[in-house]
């Protein structure tokens, strides 16, 4: 399994590097706000990079599946000592690694900023918890959407389909906020994306 995960990361290292850069920008913006106080420019940078992180996750999922189909990678992998389930799980785990790169530095920065610049209220720690869970699920949903849409030979389907699914995930977060209902809806969306991807991937001709 580790070999498969490492292969996924090496083959798609561009997205991991991109995610690291975006995280670095977010952390830099947080540091600026810690030192000089909360300002509009830094907040815009955080929101923009945060949004891009989710797009990167979606594109990563798409690249993993589309690249596989185009280069017939799974045809080779399926004849090694692994099953298609292993291949798919490795892809999801590679997505989780990217998600951690995308979320953890930003959330740590956010916690530090709240401690330094805001009064020590219990409300903030609960808010950070809720936001973390919803963002993590939204990230997984974006990656899952990418996996689902990427299993095709049609570039047009990818170009049209991925933004649509990412917009659906974004609107779920916007409409439902960061509460329990958002967690339930996103969990369902992840279930649908993973379930459908698993079905198409495991029953397809390689």
């Amino acid at each position: 399994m580790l070999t498969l995960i490492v292969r996924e990361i090496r083959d798609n290292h561009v997205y991991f590097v991109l995610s690291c850069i975006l995280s670095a920008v977010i952390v830099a913006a947080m540091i600026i706000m810690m030192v000089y106080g909360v300002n509009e420019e830094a907040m815009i940078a955080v929101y923009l990079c945060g949004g891009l992180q989710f797009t990167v996750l979606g594109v990563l999922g798409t690249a993993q599946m589309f690249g596989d189909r185009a280069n017939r990678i799974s045809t080779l992998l399926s004849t090694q000592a692994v099953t298609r389930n292993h291949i798919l799980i490795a892809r999801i785990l590679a997505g989780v690694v990217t998600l951690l790169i995308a979320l953890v530095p930003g959330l740590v920065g956010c916690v530090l900023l709240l401690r330094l610049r805001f009064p020590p209220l219990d409300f903030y720690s609960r808010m950070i918890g809720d936001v973390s869970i919803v963002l993590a699920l939204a990230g997984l949903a974006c990656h899952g959407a990418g996996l689902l849409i990427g299993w095709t030979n049609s570039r047009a389907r990818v170009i049209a389909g991925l933004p649509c699914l990412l917009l659906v995930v974004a609107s779920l977060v916007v409409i439902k906020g960061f509460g329990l209902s958002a967690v339930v809806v996103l969990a369902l969306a992840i279930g649908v994306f993973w379930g459908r991807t698993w079905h198409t991937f495991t029953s397809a001709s390689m």
Partner: protein
Amino acid sequence: MNDKPIVIEDLVKFYDGRCVLDGLSLEVPRGCIYGLLGRNGSGKTTMIRILLGLEPPTRGRTFVLGEDSMRLSANAHGRVGYVAEGHHLIQSYKVRRLVDLCRGLSLQWNDEFFGQLMEIFRLPLDRKVKDLSTGMRAQLNLALAMAIDPELVILDDPTLGLDTVARRQFLELAIDVIQRQGRTILFSSHILADVERIADRIGVLVAGKLVVDCSLDELKSRVKKLRVIFPERTPQDLYLTDIINGRAQGREMVLTVANWNPQKRAILETFGPESCTEMPMTLEDIFIECTRPASAVVPQESEV
């Protein structure tokens, strides 16, 4: 250990409404080198792909090393070496990286044997797979398939695109591999001389049906080509069972008959031929006779 590493039961496969495999059943015993022959589009590759779980069947079941092909475990996959037609290697990888990947995914890896193969083939580790010639890709594919010390080796037209020297080299290596005990090989090829050289059992696929499934010696002894000369014109009512092909011109009739035996000779004698001579047949001759559109299935001995 499974006594029949390959079992196919009533396999049917349709592609876009076209029947590619039509009720195919086959069992390959352990240690057998099975040569699968068939013309282009006869269903050889489809059968192999279904066996390996790369393609779902329309109907029927296939088992590899005792496991259902559609639910093959990682363990079963790891005991099968596969050389695909067209060599499915990751083109964008360098050879070294591909080797490392396959080594990392294998259950066991025979470094010594793999090293020997790489030396024989002189494959460059620092070149990208897409920059290798077809022959080199075939050799790399074979080396990767053999390095895992497979229990079952499936070779789908592995010599396709190889020059004569590389083909000979490949076959010599295949024979070496075959000599290792307990290994079962399914070998599909267009090149009949290759199959004749290494196979001990032959299957011929024609339009998705297995029309021949017997040992090579049995096939050669059962199928006979006869040149029969009659005193006048060839009889219109000549009937023998198991005629695979026959053509008549004037006084001469050339018949290809399966399961030729004294009874059939006696029946033929009743038509009063002037002479009846057996014409020698190579595997290629038999293959051509069996795959002609009008040819009939070569039945089992018991059916005669």
